[in-house]
């Protein structure tokens, strides 16, 4: 199953033209890949309107009973943005539906995420809650929050660095609460996030915009 996911990941990657935020600019494509204690995620989306991006979401989920794979189209919506003099606030929704596969069993799956963030040049905070249902395979609610500061202020064409703490709450998992200290790096259209969680998993996430 993992081999099938990785095969799909690398099959899709060359087709991509990414996730700090689930939308980029109109005509822009984002590829986001996440690897953490919950599994491996690949998202490719295309922003076709200042408020909407359409993409494909795929995740190989590490589950206590049996790992599973899910894939399907997703619609990312910018519900509200506040453009402030020194900051920006957003509310997003990401909703999708597709298939989940565990062993030889296939089930329809659906998911929706509400996310809010606030960012200045110095401070970043976000909160998201995600509902997922794949019938008997898994139905869960999951929450995530980030809080971070930029230790220095860099320009657009320089390396931007953030130090953050990520808190995950997964009632369906063995470790309900997971804390991950994170280092985030931005360089123009490249974004890399690395961390090591309280349950001893390495996290590596990256995003590219085209």
């Amino acid at each position, binding site marked *: 199953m993992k081999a099938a996911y990785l095969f799909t990941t690398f099959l899709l990657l060359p087709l991509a033209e990414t996730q*700090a935020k689930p*939308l980029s*600019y109109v005509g*822009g494509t984002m590829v986001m890949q996440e690897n953490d204690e919950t599994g491996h995620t690949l998202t490719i989306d295309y922003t076709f309107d200042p408020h909407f991006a359409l993409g494909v979401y795929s995740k190989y989920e590490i589950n206590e009973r049996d790992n599973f794979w899910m894939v399907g189209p997703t619609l990312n919506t910018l519900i509200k*943005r506040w453009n402030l*003099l020194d*900051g*920006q606030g957003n509310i997003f929704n990401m909703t999708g539906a597709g298939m989940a596969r565990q062993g030889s069993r296939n089930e329809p799956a659906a998911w929706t995420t509400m996310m809010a963030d606030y960012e200045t040049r110095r401070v970043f905070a976000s909160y998201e809650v995600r509902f997922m249902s794949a019938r008997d395979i898994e139905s869960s609610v999951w929450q995530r929050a980030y809080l971070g500061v930029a230790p220095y202020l860099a320009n*657009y064409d320089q390396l931007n660095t953030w130090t953050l703490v990520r808190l995950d709450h997964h009632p369906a998992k063995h470790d309900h609460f997971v804390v991950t200290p994170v280092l985030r790096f931005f360089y123009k259209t490249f974004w890399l996030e690395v961390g090591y969680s309280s349950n001893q998993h390495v996290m590596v996430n990256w995003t590219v*915009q085209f």
Partner: protein
Amino acid sequence: MRHILLTLVALTILSGSALGETINTTVNGMVCAFCATGIEKTFRKQPEVATVHVDLPKKTVTITTKSGRTLTDAKVKEIVTYSGYSMGKIIREK
């Protein structure tokens, strides 16, 4: 005669590559490198635009138009809004 022709060709090339107006605008909400990329790319797509420079600490975008071309304030605002941000003050230099 040959020198005159070469001078005329050089002047034609130089005038063609000369830049037009410099427009400097502040952008509210532009706080990250990804935001800046979106704005830069959207401006670069405009046929009137020759160069775009983003200054993230100052939250400004400086656009230089092609010779004989301009972008109205309304058009600059439209592009900034379409990129997902809001426009602050605008300053023009010929």
